[in-house]
């Protein structure tokens, strides 16, 4: 059935590959020179950016996933997600590198094996094995919940 086809956007954070549902991605941006910091927010909240006249908060996925030695390079990007089922929920997600768009079938997603929590994230939608590489699909609902907390 066609409804089972899914499109993913994969990205890299240090040595791991993750992905999000491509249909919920609004924009992919370079990191702007200034991300305006918002006072008294948790460390993963990098601040806000101006996207075509709208204020979009940006979170650092690397901090959320509890990575160390974070560096910004030429490939560092912001993926702006827009969870369709929620209102004013656009969120910029800072990642090390955006990789590719993958079309696949939902059946191919295997349950993600988690030993405990992965940083602040507690569930994934599943893991796709592609060319011997594990791609963990991030549950955006879970991510936004984590950020709101």
């Amino acid at each position, binding site marked *: 059935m066609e409804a089972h086809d899914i499109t993913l956007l994969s990205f890299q954070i240090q040595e791991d590959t993750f992905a999000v549902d491509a249909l919920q991605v609004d924009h992919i941006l370079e990191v702007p020179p200034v991300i*305006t910091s*918002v*006072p*008294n927010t948790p460390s993963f*909240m990098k601040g*806000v950016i101006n996207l075509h*006249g709208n*204020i979009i908060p940006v979170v650092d996925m690397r901090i959320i996933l509890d990575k160390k030695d974070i560096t910004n390079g030429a490939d560092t990007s912001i993926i702006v997600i827009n969870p369709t089922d929620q*209102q004013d929920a656009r969120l910029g997600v800072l990642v090390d590198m955006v990789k590719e768009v993958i079309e696949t079938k939902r059946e191919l997603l295997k349950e993600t094996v988690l030993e405990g929590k992965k940083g602040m994230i507690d569930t994934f939608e599943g893991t796709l094995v592609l060319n011997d590489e594990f791609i963990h699909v991030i549950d955006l609902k879970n991510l936004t919940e984590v950020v*709101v907390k």
Partner: protein
Amino acid sequence: MIDKFRAKFVEESMDNLHDLEEALFLLEKDMENKELIERIFRAMHSLKGGGAMFGFNHLSDFTHHLETIFDWVRNGKLKVSTDLISLTFSAIDQINFLLKTGDLSKEEDIQNQKVFIQRIQAFLTVTNSPSDAASVNTASDQEAGESEEKSYLISFIPQKELLQNGTNPLYLLDDIHALGDALSIAYTHKVPSLEVLDASANYCIWQVLVSTAESINEIKDVFIFVEDECELHVDLIAETAIVGQPEVKALVSKALSSNILLTPDDFKKGQWAPKSQQPAVRDEKKKVAVKEHKISSMRVSSHKIDELVTLVSELVTIQAQLSLYAENNEDPTIVSLTENIQKLSRQLRENAFDISLIPLQSELMRFQRLVRDLSKDQNKDIDFIIEGGDLELDKNIIENLTDPLLHILRNSIDHGIELPDERIAAGKAPKGTILFKAFHSGANVIIEISDDGKGIDPEVILQKAIHKGLVEADVQLDKKEILDLLFVSGFSTRDVVSDVSGRGVGMDVVRRKIANIRGEVTIESEKGKGTLISIRLPLTLSIIDGLLVAVGSNQYVIPISAIDKIYALEPSQLKQSFNNVVVIDSEQYPYIDLRKVFQEEEKESAEVIQMIMVKAEDKITGVIVDNVIGEYQTVVKPLGKYLKKQEIISGASIMGDGTIAMVIDTSRLLHNRKLKK
């Protein structure tokens, strides 16, 4: 398609209902007012007619009964009474319900409606005969249905397009038949042969003879919805009921066979005319739309307005960028062009925001209703006075204001105004007063709700707050601070949650809701004399005049409306002060260092300290910033749901160069500081 019409009908009916309610309020004060009765009747008639046309059959049936009552009232057969008005008010609720649900399907609802209709009919049979025998007479005459009846000839010549609007002419004829004995004649001679027949066109002409006690206007009212699509004549042909007489039948059959329309003159020759036979008031041709119809206002979906306001906000932002560019490129042509654009965009902005304002009046009806119903329930006598109801406010503000205002009013009725006996005992007039007053004050709108009830006893509030552990037992508070405790969450003056106010939520929710629309609420009260609650609101939500300041690496906007003064102080003036108090002009003010609040690192000693005096809740507090940059008009954008918890920042604003400055909510800033202390 029809759904669209139905939606439109519901929307218009809501307006009608609104009008009806308003007229009813006025009628309550002036029960003899003919004009108001007429207005009510009209509104009901439109509801009935429209209801039938758009398939709200229960609605139509229901309003029909109401309409009958007001028809009696308008013909002087029935007197307006408080009971009648109360009945009509509850009927309005029922109509509202019917409009929302459409035709009833639940057995329970249908039963309720039946009971309701019986209540209405009870009014008609009891004929609450207060005074004149004449009115009783006419009423009984109606039942006997004889002497008062007159006969009319109705010629209904529709245009071909009649059917296209969904009108069913047979319903109109049914309505006429409902008025009294009637005889319809359909002329079908204009119907073409099948090959050329357009199924969506109307080819028929009708004439109806009717004998009825209703007035000529009543007959015309039946055709009120089609008057532009037809030629209509209503002529008085006899002062008695003639329908059914053999001579009439003969005339009718003759007309039918000859396809020549009957004229009033045909009936003149008849024998049944004792009185003068002139055709009464020949109706002017209504066919052509001669009425010059000027549209003074129009209905636009609020969605479109929101879009317009958003676009204008964008324009203001872009325009600021342009101004910046012009400033940097000292090209005189660009500078003057920019200035012109600035002027225009300012005007455009003002216009757009003006459009998005709606009068407070639209919500006041609900309040009047609440006061009326609650005071009746609790046997309290309350005069609800409204001043400044024509004041206009941003639609979004009004939407968010309704619930807090309802809550405040409920409180006033519930806990404020006493029962008449208690009032007399306290030496007051038995009738309590609630005054609702709205007025402009600078860039703000102030709404005051005051009552002359029993007021609030500060001692009771304090004891309660101590009991609930909200304050220490030995705390020293002045009266204002005690009253402020009412707004602390977890405080509700009644232990028992009553049905009316105090549904477990209290004034803390009111304050929070008002704060959400950048408003402030304060309370004053005198025990035994009454309570005054005043709400200060911004005129519009999305654009503010702000002072741009720098703190650390960021820029912030402080709303000008909150600023009292700005001082440049010597560092020594601060050093002399202890406990975060600064002395300016021999007055002491507490102060906050924004660097500390925003957890920025300490600044090395500066030569001048910029201290902005901010006022909130009648108090002035100093706020230290690094730098004052200047005054800007800015569009406030929401921070979105992820930063909702960010209390001190109420939004963000995009500057001319595309950078972001955050807008500080001063009252929250000062409030938070108080809590920390």
